[in-house]
């Protein structure tokens, strides 16, 4: 459905995308995961035919994003990273405007947006600029959907949205996927990755890995330990001296310790900490999260 082949793009000296290739299947919910400045927005804009790639090719539903940009724009719904509706128009006026622009009406495709739009319909006479962050996103999604696109491209739709609205938003995406819409969504939040069918980890314009979230977690090549302690800072300093250490990172109140596969046991790490005089702790093996993998891959890339 979406084919990206060795796409290259840079701004001045900064490389935004370096030979990026990926393919998204029809009806898939595909996540583009990476920090700010990783190249997510550039890739999406190229797919939306808003930017020209410097090398490589991409197509959406068979339409080339450079040559057939008009068709591409017709079959895709797009939600840019910034809230991009008219703040001085009401909720309903915004929706109506975008429906008409795409040659349709609210009634005709109401079934598509019903779930989402119903939640903001009580405020349909309110100016869009006065909506809360979560409601703005719902309206923006409704506007992007109103012309029944085959493909949805959502650039960080949950950034700046509260936790409850974020959860709701992902549930909506799931339902849209079930209706057969192919969705490419980007997010800087690693915890949202597990909600996608497949994800691509992107860093500094390069794709590091493309997999299902489960396979990605399974593919974690090293040992991972969750270390709980009162003195997070001190303990992490001690652990940095651990032999066969790969990394130690704090995840809230827990330290994630990564060591070379098969070197350590809970016991051997415990002994090491005890030698350093650290007694008040607990260690257990843990499964990796996407974030663990991301950090591992990132460090790996740095070394290469």
């Amino acid at each position: 459905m979406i084919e990206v082949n060795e796409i290259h793009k840079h701004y001045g000296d900064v490389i935004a995308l370096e030979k990026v290739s990926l393919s998204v299947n029809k009806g898939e919910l595909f996540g583009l995961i990476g920090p700010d400045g990783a190249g997510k927005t550039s890739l999406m804009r190229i797919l939306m035919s808003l930017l020209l790639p410097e090398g490589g090719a991409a197509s959406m539903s068979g339409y080339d994003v450079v040559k057939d940009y008009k068709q591409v724009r017709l079959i895709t719904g797009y939600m840019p990273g910034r809230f991009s509706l008219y703040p001085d128009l009401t909720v309903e006026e915004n929706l109506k405007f975008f429906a008409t622009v795409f040659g349709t009406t609210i009634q005709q495709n109401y079934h598509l947006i019903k779930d989402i739009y119903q939640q903001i319909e009580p405020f349909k006479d309110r100016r869009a600029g006065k909506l809360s962050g979560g409601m703005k996103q719902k309206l923006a999604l409704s506007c992007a959907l109103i012309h029944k696109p085959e493909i949805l491209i959502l650039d960080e739709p949950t950034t700046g949205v509260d936790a409850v609205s974020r959860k709701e938003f992902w549930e909506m995406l799931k339902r849209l996927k079930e209706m057969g819409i192919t969705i490419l969504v980007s997010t800087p939040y690693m915890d949202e990755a597990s909600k996608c069918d497949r994800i691509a980890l992107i860093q500094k314009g390069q794709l590091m890995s493309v997999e299902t979230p489960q396979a990605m977690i399974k593919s974690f090549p090293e040992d991972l330990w969750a270390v709980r302690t009162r003195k997070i800072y001190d303990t992490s300093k001690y652990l940095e001296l651990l032999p066969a250490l790969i990394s130690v990172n704090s995840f809230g109140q827990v330290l994630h310790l990564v060591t070379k596969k098969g070197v350590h046991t809970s016991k051997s790490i415990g002994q090491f900490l005890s030698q350093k005089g650290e007694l008040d702790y607990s260690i257990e093996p843990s499964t990796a999260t996407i974030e663990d993998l991301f950090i591992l891959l990132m460090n790996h890339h740095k070394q290469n």
Partner: protein
Amino acid sequence: MNRFIAFLRKEFFHIFRDPRTLVILFGIPIAQLLLFGYVLTNEVRNVKIGIVDNSKDYLSIKLSERILSSGYFLLAATPATESEYEGLFRSSKVKEIIVFEPDFARNLIKEGKAGIQVIADASEPNAAQLIVNYTTAIANDFVRDEFVKEQKLPGIAIKVRMLFNENMRDAYNFIPGLIAVILMLISAMMTAITITREKESGTMEILLASPLKPIQIILGKVVPYMILSIVNALVVLILGYFVFEVPIVGSLSLLLAEILLFIFLALSLGILISTFVNNQVTALALSGFVLMLPSILLSGFIFPVKNMPIALQIIANLMPPRWFIEINRTVMLKGGGLAEIWPHTLILIGMSLLFIVISIRKFKIRLQ
């Protein structure tokens, strides 16, 4: 077509929901009109004049007294010879000199006709015309009062001479000029701002990603301002006609057609500016300094182009309002037709086409 109408609706919502836009659209033109109309021209009070009475009879003395007691004029000089006139004007000792012909009373009574020559300093054309008008009115009243019992009123023939600017016909030169300035302001500046606003707010990204064609986006942005500009031009003409009694001597339809052409030109210029800049502040600055100042200062609105140094004249000739103001004056005040203004019209058409072609070539269907 539906798309286009939806776009227009949206655009009118933007305009009518933004108080600032409304002020610029309707407040400023009317404020300017009243400002130029009243402040700049209506100050006739204690104007210094000179009186040369070659008759010194009871009627000439009475009329002189009447003029001086009106409150509008002050006697500043009584030059003995004509050679003194220019010096008095040059040193701004007087703004007007009234010369009574010999045997004023006798001519008026016996012949039913007597002459006064009024010489005015026309370096300030509006003021000069007003002063002359006041003088004329006082003289006419005087005759009416003095000969109230007569069957047939005698007349005073007033020969007006405008010094320094002999063939000054357009005392009302601010209305033709003001139309140009206002249209420049609304059409060009507002268009530039409204398009850059979409760029700045990120909505241009969505509009570009939609099936709207560039021409639809541009027309959708421009047509509302075109309509409002026409309304504004009409308001200025109507106010000018009724409040300031500025005549429209020539063909009204020709005038309106030329106004329409100028609106089109200003809009193309606005679009052109918007293709160069990406935020509203720059658009505003560019329109303000690049459009407004030259169209006020270099267009002949206030300072006659003919009196400028050659270098400025060349620049002035590149300013669209310079040609438009001349068209306006010719049609409105002198009653001229296409025969006189076809070169100006052609220049305006040429400029519009140039702007619109560059804009279309420069308008990007993508973000960069």
